[in-house]
């Protein structure tokens, strides 16, 4: 089976720093993959390379078997690979409704109209449907600047999902959200993901969130993937425990950056 996303020998260096080292990843349709690792492990660099934000130093990136390396982010988005961001990327001075309506219009055509109104009845109705699905309908006419952080994250993810992507990359969907609210947020997101039948890869620091939602984990350390497999196996892996989650009985490596506890922020 051709994977939805595949990277072959992906490398990225920033001067003397290696942010990604020989990354070989295959993500199959329908998988929910969690990416874990301490800060600086290369998780966001991986997402940024795959979505065209950063050019890799070397390697290949394929989507549905076709090379997407070198394509502009917009072309990668149109190919079906959408993403959300660690800090929600919205249009702060516009209303939440307009944010979604702009995304809907963009999904319809890469050549927007000069004179036809943006806010059509059909787009507004669809946007309201999405707001309800993501439980942010209360903010329909509010400017984004007036919306709480967690709801901004949901709107950011909703906008990423609007173009019916084949695969969704979520960069720390729960960052900036309080511990007891992460569950609500992720339940909402994952319900939408299941409803739309998406393949998902998400970066997450909270191991409880990872354990609860993913079918597979990629563990990053110093730009390398040190473990890849089902959650139970990866989280029980000695190197992952030592270098990522900080649960090892052994003394952690001096530069591992991992801490005790379920979270490694």
């Amino acid at each position, binding site marked *: 089976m051709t994977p939805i996303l595949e990277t072959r020998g992906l490398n990225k260096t920033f001067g003397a720093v290696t942010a990604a080292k020989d990354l070989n990843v295959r993500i199959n349709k329908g998988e929910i993959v969690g990416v874990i690792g301490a800060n600086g492990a290369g998780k966001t660099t991986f997402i940024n390379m795959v979505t065209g934000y950063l050019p890799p130093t070397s390697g290949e990136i394929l989507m549905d078997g076709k090379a997407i390396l070198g394509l502009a982010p917009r072309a990668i988005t149109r190919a079906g690979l959408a993403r959300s961001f660690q800090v929600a990327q919205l249009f702060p001075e516009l209303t939440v409704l307009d944010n979604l309506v702009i995304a809907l219009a963009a999904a319809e055509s890469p050549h927007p109209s000069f004179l036809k*109104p943006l806010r059509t009845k059909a787009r507004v109705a669809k946007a309201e449907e999405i707001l309800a699905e993501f439980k942010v309908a209360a903010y329909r006419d509010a400017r984004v600047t007036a919306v709480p952080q967690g709801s901004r994250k949901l709107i950011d993810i909703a906008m990423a999902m609007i173009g019916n992507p084949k695969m969704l990359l979520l960069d720390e969907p729960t960052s900036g959200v309080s511990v007891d609210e992460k569950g609500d947020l992720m339940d909402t997101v994952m319900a939408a993901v299941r409803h739309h039948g998406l393949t998902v890869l998400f970066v997450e620091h909270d191991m409880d969130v990872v354990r609860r939602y993913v079918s597979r984990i990629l563990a990053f350390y110093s730009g390398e993937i040190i473990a890849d497999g089902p959650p139970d196996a990866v989280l029980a892996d000695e190197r992952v425990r030592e270098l990522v989650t900080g649960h090892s009985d052994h003394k952690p490596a001096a530069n591992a950056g991992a801490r005790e506890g379920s979270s490694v922020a």
Partner: protein
Amino acid sequence: MRLDKTELALVGLAVLLLLGGMVAPGWLIFLVTIALAKALVVQGVVMQMKAGLVSFGQGLFYCVGGYAVGMGGPFLGISAGLVLLAIGVVAAVGLAMVLGLLLTRYREIFFAMLSLAFSMILYGVLVKSQELGSTDGFNVNNWTLLGQTIAGGETATHVVFLLTVVAAAVVAFLLHRYYRSSVGMTCEAIRENEVRVEYLGLSPRWIQYANYVAAAGVSALGGGLTALAAGHVDPDMAYWTTSGEFIFIALLGGTGSVLAPFLAAIVFSLVRTYAIEFVPHAWQMILGFTLLGIVVFLPKGLWSLFTRHRPEAPVVPAAPQKTSTGGAGA
């Protein structure tokens, strides 16, 4: 076709202006004509401001529009006023299509300074070229409208006024629709967050490019009408202080409505006219204080006087999704 409040206001104001033009003195008609024509140039500045770019060189297209009218007669033998205006618009659009390929790669001060550089290049070419009129520029030849010769004097003043009011109303109507269109709203989205626009599958650069080219056409029309009204064009139309004046008017009016540049241009013309009349040696200071007052007390321009008491959309306090409120957005 259903008209909204702004569109109805545009139609109403255009009719009022045309009726007023039948009884107003010549000097006032001339002042309003120049103000409306310059407001069209300012519309080009505002189009770019809405997309997050500030052009310090819109005088370039103002000058191209004006010189097309001034040179169309002696160089091309064309006297039809509408054709001369169209030549100016087409020339400006063509020039913008070339310059835009470079300019839309830049943002913020780099875009501003590059746009200024191109207008100053044109200024330099005009000043140094005898064939292009040098510092004297050109007088606009007698021109025709629908076959009738417009030979100057009161008739010419009234005809240009009529032409300018109609052109301003049509452009404002189209711009109002444009600002609510997909491209218009996407321009605002680009100003807010270019990265997100890119990740929605759109090209911010090409949308900026289209907006830049359209703005050039609108500004050139303003330049052409100014040339018809003033009967003369010279290189100062491309000089940086002229572009600065357009930014002044844009800030004075704000970007809140398509009507704002017209209001601001008329206020600017009145303030300058009376400042020169009463304080001939310090009128620039009066303009400076006016701009200072606007920036301090009305940062969103004169138009905010009409909208500042309009309530923001209410935010429901109890959101269904319990979330924290910390951190900044995009």
